[in-house]
């Protein structure tokens, strides 16, 4: 049985091979061949992942660590290049390779306008991304995870800046990379701390040591987990490091779907879920995670209300949904968070791909104010988009409902305020999603004639992934049916239980009060439906086309957070740099160095004057010299 698992290294290596082939031979491959290779390797990985998933599902499966080679081995610290196969990683493997494969297929059609080398470059990047992401989830220690962690950041950078001729895209890419790096620094320091605390970076060893009673002080754990969380805020776009994600929409839309919705941004959730035991042992951090997550969810939702770029709305919705997931993590609903990751991967990828399809049809128009009435022209796109909207709004029985509900009910148990804010955010979510839906697909077409003329449904390579994802968005929720509906039907919970075993042992889940659960479910569904209906009815008739005013403008301008960062961080740093460069470096440090040189020259010029050319002067100076020596003699004698 372990035969398949020992082949786990193939899962990341295949995309890597795809990357190398596409990247090195990009001038020699035709587009179709590139597409086949690029998607094929992911498909192969997906199949392998399925096989492994099959193994993992079996009863009594124990986490397996597949050691490849010694990566860094210094003294007592030994970091091996090893993969860990357990339910959590197996689940993520499926999501990544599965959604990844669909998006690759989608891309073959979406990117067909590119020249062959650029096309190959795109697929190379995409494959590299999948490789990194797989490293991230497969790594059996924090260092391997970190490798993947930074790798996905790099790919994100490369893909956002894919159209490198456009300087603004480049700037967005840079912003993404740098903000990620800030988070990564936190992650790194956490790793250093763990190394000095535990002497290892292996998950299993660290979790075992940490779980031992009184082995590690809570303070240390709080520190480590907070630092890890800093890393997570960078990667998963949480306050305060979330501003890169909306800008990242500069990349091709499939990229946004894959990286900035389905997979990479959930790395933070994966990491915390992976380290759940540490977080459970550090309640302070948990609170921080919950609060930050909730705040992000709310903030992003408010901003999404007033965005007019189709991708921007989706981006803020992603940030907001990620906030939900962190809320789930913060309140200890690890399964719920992972569940939401999964469902979100499906419906958000679907949303983005749908948006891509729209943009494709609209010839790269992204402003929803210039759309409308697309329902007639893009049947499949419209249908799948609607399903996704329903899913994200939390309407049963779509996938989003189950996962969101699980998080919200856990939040209620922890603190009803969390719940209240969460539900409010759900209202906003339903509202802005349907604002988007209604403005885009309902009403009259508001674009140019030319656009209207060319409107058409996308090719099948794009539609099929949409349909597959739509199906998944509908059915995925049933793997996690809450106990209130059907006891013991939470298949995902059972599946992941070994991963969260340590945490559940410390904080056993309270017996759910069925009535309460039903009540909560009712409230959230009702609220979501309210928002949905209101938005539908309002925007299908009279879309919101004017420039926002007053408070709306604040929201449209994203609470001016970017401007704030610019003013308090970027500008001062630049000013400091300029000050160093033009003043300290040239005038102070070099000034001192050159000053010494000049002083020597000046001294030389002055001392030269002693050499007056007059014998009398020379003799006088000599006599003074003698006098000086005698005076020294007279004074040192005493």
């Amino acid at each position: 049985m372990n035969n398949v698992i020992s082949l786990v290294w193939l899962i990341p290596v295949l995309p890597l091979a795809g990357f190398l082939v596409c990247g090195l031979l990009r001038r020699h491959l035709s587009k179709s061949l590139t597409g086949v290779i690029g998607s094929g390797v992911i498909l192969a990985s997906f199949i392998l992942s399925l096989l492994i998933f099959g193994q993992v599902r079996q009863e009594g499966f124990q986490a397996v660590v597949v050691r490849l080679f010694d990566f860094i081995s210094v003294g007592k610290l030994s970091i091996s290049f090893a993969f860990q196969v357990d339910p959590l990683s197996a689940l993520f493997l499926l999501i990544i390779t599965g959604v990844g494969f669909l998006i690759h297929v989608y891309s073959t059609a979406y990117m067909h306008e590119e020249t062959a080398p650029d096309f190959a470059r795109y697929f190379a990047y995409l494959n590299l991304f999948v490789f990194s992401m797989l490293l991230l989830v497969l790594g059996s220690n924090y260092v391997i995870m970190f490798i993947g962690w930074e790798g996905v950041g790099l790919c994100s950078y490369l893909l956002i800046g894919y159209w490198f001729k456009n300087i603004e895209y480049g700037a967005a890419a840079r912003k993404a990379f740098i903000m990620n790096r800030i988070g990564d620094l936190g992650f790194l320091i956490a790793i250093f701390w763990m190394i000095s605390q535990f002497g290892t970076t292996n998950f299993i060893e660290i979790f075992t040591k940490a779980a031992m009673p009184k082995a590690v002080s809570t303070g240390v754990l709080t520190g480590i987990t907070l630092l890890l969380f800093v890393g997570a805020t960078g990667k998963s776009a949480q306050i305060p490091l979330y501003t890169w994600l909306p800008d990242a929409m500069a990349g091709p839309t499939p990229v946004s779907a894959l990286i900035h919705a389905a997979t990479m941004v959930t790395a933070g959730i994966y990491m915390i879920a992976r380290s759940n035991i540490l977080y459970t042992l550090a309640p302070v951090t948990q609170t921080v995670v919950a609060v930050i997550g909730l705040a992000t969810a709310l903030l992003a939702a408010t901003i999404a209300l007033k965005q007019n770029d189709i991708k921007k709305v989706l981006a803020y919705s992603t940030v907001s949904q990620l906030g939900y997931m962190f809320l789930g993590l913060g309140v200890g609903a690890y399964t719920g968070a992972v569940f939401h990751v999964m469902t979100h991967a499906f419906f958000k990828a679907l949303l983005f791909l749908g948006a891509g399809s729209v943009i494709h049809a609209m010839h790269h128009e992204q402003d929803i104010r210039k759309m409308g009435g697309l329902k007639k022209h893009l049947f499949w796109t419209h249908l799948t988009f609607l399903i996704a909207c329903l899913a994200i709004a939390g309407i049963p029985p779509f996938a989003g409902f189950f996962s969101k509900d699980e998080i919200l009910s856990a939040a209620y148990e922890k603190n009803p305020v969390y719940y209240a804010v969460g539900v409010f955010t759900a209202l906003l979510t339903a509202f802005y999603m349907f604002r988007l839906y209604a403005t885009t697909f309902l009403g009259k077409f508001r674009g140019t004639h030319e656009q209207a003329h060319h409107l058409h449904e996308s090719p099948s390579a794009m539609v099929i992934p949409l349909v597959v994802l739509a199906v998944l968005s509908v059915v995925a929720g049933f793997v996690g049916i809450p106990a209130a509906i059907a006891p013991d039907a939470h298949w995902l919970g059972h599946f992941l239980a070994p991963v969260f075993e340590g945490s559940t042992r410390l904080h056993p889940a309270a017996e759910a009060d069925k009535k309460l659960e039903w009540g909560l479910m009712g409230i959230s569904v009702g609220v979501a439906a309210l928002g949905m209906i209101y938005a539908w009815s309002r925007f299908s008739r009279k879309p919101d086309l004017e420039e926002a005013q007053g408070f709306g403008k604040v929201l449209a301008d994203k609470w001016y957070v970017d401007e704030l960062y610019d003013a308090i961080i970027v500008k001062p740093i630049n000013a400091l740099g300029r000050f160093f460069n033009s003043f300290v470096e040239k005038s102070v440090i070099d000034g001192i160095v050159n000053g010494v040189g000049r002083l020597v020259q000046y001294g030389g010029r002055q001392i030269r004057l002693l050499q007056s050319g007059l014998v009398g002067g020379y003799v006088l100076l000599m006599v003074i010299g003698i006098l000086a020596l005698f005076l020294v003699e007279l004074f040192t004698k005493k």
Partner: protein
Amino acid sequence: MGTTQVLFWFLSVLALISAIMVVVSKNPVHSVLWLIFVFFAISGHYILLNAQFLAIVNLIVYAGAIMVLFLFVIMLMNLNADTEPQKNKWLKIAGVVAGGSLLLVLVAALKHADMKNQLADMGSGDIGLIRNLGLTLFNDYMIPFEITSVLFLSAIVGAVVIGKKD
């Protein structure tokens, strides 16, 4: 205070005054003449110290030969008081002060010397006689004596090289 003492003081004062006059005289010829006075005074001291040979040599070589040479050159150049332009007053003062300070410092350094009991033999002892000096000179001091010939040769060569008109 015996005769020798009187003579000592007389010669000392004479030497000092003449030396000062050498320095302060405006006319170079006067300076030469005052210098000759100094030499005489010093020769007197030599005699007091019973160094007759040196006293004679001093008069012959210094007062006789060297000073005449000086005088001769001065006459040749037709120098008089006016030919020396006035030196900067401050430099002059500085020179005097420096010289005086040197004296002070030297005296200060030497005054602790416990030499009260050390006497310079006067009138007695015959090491200064020609015979004794000559004997030592041509025995132990043979080498330096010969070596001085090199000195003279080079001086001669030098005077020729420099003085020759070409």
